């Protein structure tokens, strides 16, 4: 379990950049994941809307807005797509059973921002399939109820953006995302997409900048990753138009994407995911920001990262045959 060992290092042994740990008593982190030990996911229940417009911040020599660095969503992980802080439906763990959720409006909104009801507009057969997975997740009588992420498959779109933090690196012609499992290259040119019969976990991306907004056209998704442990999904026919809208102070961005899949949904869906940048002043949180200080004795603090190779979930996480007793 390399990843777990690395997480332990980040917490205990290596010089971590952040000065203090931000614990959130009463806010459970994702069960079985390092974040729980690191103070949980920094739940944000509300977030500012960032408008598309001019970029007035720093630019790279090639003219791109400089957004390179470590980023993370601010809401929750992939337990639940439409009620991100609502936990995994049917979770038999004692933590989940003892948790008092309270009214829905006290939690962060659905990642589905359109339709207004926050639900994915599934066709009836597709809703049935989603619910079948949601029920099967904690009663995995079929292998297909085990999420691909359990074998560290890339999380796909959009799940990569809320499964741990990630790093953005930029180059002339490219924006590169480095996730805990897998990479994604956004090509900033107009070369044609891959042939339609090639399906890959993180899709095939073509992007360009419009002021403060990185606009990305995604095709070739294999759509095997699912959006969350709730089983939400699109099909391999999905077309995604993404807008990464960055604030010029370089502290946050909003991901606003339209998912069009007439074979699964009754209408296009808008997905919104808020994100914020890691800074030197951030408290330690290895779930959101797996950043450590480089070994640079006597010199400036430089953020560094361990090798990104996922073996974290290859245990039996989530597949409790018998609910644990308190």
């Amino acid at each position, binding site marked *: 379990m390399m990843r777990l060992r690395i997480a332990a290092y980040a917490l205990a042994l290596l010089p971590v950049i952040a000065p203090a740990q931000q614990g959130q008593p009463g806010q459970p982190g994702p069960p079985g994941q390092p974040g729980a030990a690191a103070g949980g996911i920094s739940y944000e229940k509300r977030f500012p809307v960032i408008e598309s417009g001019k970029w007035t911040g720093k630019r790279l020599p090639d003219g791109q807005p400089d957004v390179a660095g470590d980023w993370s969503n601010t809401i929750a992980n992939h337990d639940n797509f439409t009620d991100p802080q609502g936990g995994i439906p049917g979770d038999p763990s004692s933590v989940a059973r003892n948790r008092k959720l309270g009214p829905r409006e006290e939690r962060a909104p659905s990642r589905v921002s359109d339709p207004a009801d926050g639900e994915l507009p599934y*066709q009836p057969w597709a809703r049935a399939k989603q619910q079948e997975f949601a029920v099967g997740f904690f009663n995995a009588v079929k292998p297909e109820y085990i999420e691909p992420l359990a074998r560290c498959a890339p999380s796909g779109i959009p799940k990569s953006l809320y499964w741990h933090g990630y790093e953005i690196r930029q180059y002339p012609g490219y924006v590169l995302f*480095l996730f805990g499992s897998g990479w994604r290259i956004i090509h900033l040119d107009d070369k044609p997409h891959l042939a339609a019969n090639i399906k890959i976990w993180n899709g095939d991306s073509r992007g360009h900048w419009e002021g403060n907004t990185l606009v990305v056209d995604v095709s070739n998704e294999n759509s095997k990753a699912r959006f969350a442990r709730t089983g939400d999904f699109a*099909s391999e026919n999905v077309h995604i138009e993404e807008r990464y809208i960055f604030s010029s102070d370089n502290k946050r961005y909003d991901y606003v994407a339209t998912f069009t899949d007439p074979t699964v949904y009754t209408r296009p869906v808008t997905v919104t995911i808020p994100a914020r940048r890691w800074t030197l002043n951030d408290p330690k949180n290895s779930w959101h920001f797996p950043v450590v200080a480089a070994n640079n004795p006597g010199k400036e603090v430089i953020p560094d990262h361990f*090798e990104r190779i996922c073996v974290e979930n290859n245990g039996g996480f989530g597949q409790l045959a018998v609910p644990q007793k308190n």
Partner: protein
Amino acid sequence: MSIGAALAICFLISPANAGAPARAGGDSSAGVGKIPRLGSGRPDFSGIWQTTSAADQGLEPHEARKGAPPSAGIVEGDVIPYTPEALEIKKKNYEARATADPRLKCWTLGTPRGIYYPEPFQVLQRAQDLTLVFEFGDSVRTIHTDGTLHPAETDHEFWLGDSRGHWEGDTLVVDVRDFNDQTWLSRAGDFHDEALHVVERWKLIDANTIDYKATIEDPKVYSRPWNIEVYLYRHREKNFQLIENYCYTQDYDQYYPIPKQQ
């Protein structure tokens, strides 16, 4: 066409060099053309690269065998200096290669195997680092060129090692250490232990060719350090790009059905 470009192309198609590296100790600077550089003047390794050699079939010279082409090898002096005990392990690995090669499980290939594995990788370069994005297995390796040191704590945990580079003229010299023992060096069962230490030397010899050298040492496995050299060629096909190849889950694909309307 510039003279430099013409020289570069002549060099690329020269039969003496096609598909095989310059042998260690040879004059690999012949045919030098203009090389791309960053604004800082440093050589710019950005691009998508791949060997044409058969190095991954076995680093030492070998005849053709079923399923593998012959190769003149990429080892200086032709022979990997295994200790007698390690040589026995290598022979067992060779016999079991059809099932035991970690690449068959799509495990991260390691260093230097990822460099001469016959699948493309992309170099993305900034002043502070080079990022190597491998098509095979979705692996990513960062070579730090910001003057930082290896982590003070080592635990033999990295598949690709920890890479810290510096410049010696136009040559990027990379010290790689802190490996695990889970990777092989070739399909022929060449292997290493956790004490593996690799020193790479990356040099552009023209705009489209990297002369890649590495010194490999591991006192648990080899009786002395040894050297390899291989050429890497730039992919210049129109619209060429990496295609994600996360093969680790291929055996499970049947269990990840995309829901369909019945």
